[in-house]
C-alpha cells in the first residue's frame, strides 16, 4: 500500500530541494503539487513524465491515479 508520506519522500529524494505536497483520501488516488527548479526548460509533459517515472510500474496499479501539478519556483 502506498502512502502520501512515501510518495512525498520518493519525489523529494529524486528532486532535492523541491517543494512537495502530496494528498490522498484513500491511499490509492493521490494528488501531488511539486515545485522544483529541475523543471526549468522542460515541457509540462516532460515534467509530468519525470515525476510519474519515479513510480514506474506502480501507476495504474497500487497507485490508481496520481494527479499532478508541476511548477518551477
Amino acid at each position, binding site marked *: 500500500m502506498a502512502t502520501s508520506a512515501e510518495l512525498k519522500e520518493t519525489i523529494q529524494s529524486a528532486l532535492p530541494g523541491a517543494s512537495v505536497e502530496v494528498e490522498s483520501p484513500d491511499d490509492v488516488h493521490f494528488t501531488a503539487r511539486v515545485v522544483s527548479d529541475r523543471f526549468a526548460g522542460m515541457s*509540462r*509533459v516532460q515534467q*509530468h*513524465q519525470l515525476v*510519474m*517515472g519515479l*513510480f*514506474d510500474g506502480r*501507476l*495504474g496499479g497500487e497507485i490508481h*491515479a*496520481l*494527479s*499532478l*501539478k508541476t511548477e518551477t519556483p
Partner: protein
Amino acid sequence: MSEQTSNPIRDAISQAIEQNRVILFMKGTPDQPMCGFSARTAAALQSLDTPFAAVDILPDPRIRQELSALSNWPTIPQLFVDGELVGGADIVAEMYESGELAQALGVEQPDEAPAAAPAGADPAPAPLGIENRLS
C-alpha cells in the same frame, strides 16, 4: 519488450496517432466514459466543438501497454495533437482552463453559454483499424 520485428498493435497505435490530428486514448467512449479522468478530458474536447478521434483502450490490455511504451506516459487518458502527446487529464484540464487547449487545437474558446448543446461536437468515429486488429 525485446521484440522489435513485428508489433501490429503498436504499429496500429502509431498509425492512428499519425492519421488523426486530434486523438484521445481513453477508458470507454466519449459518450460512455468508464473513468472520471477520461470523462473530464473527453468533455473538455467536446466543449471546444472540435472533431477528435477516440480510442477505447479497455477492450484489450495490450493497447494500453503498447501506448504507454510508445508515449512514455503510464496513465490513461492521453491526448495527442498533431502527432505529439499533449498530456493526460491534469494537463488537458489546465490547458482547457487557461485557453491553451483551444489555441493548440486552433479553435475559439467558448466564452459564453457553456451549457448550450455542443452542436456538432460529436467525436469522429474511433479509428477502427485498432479495434479490428484486436477482434
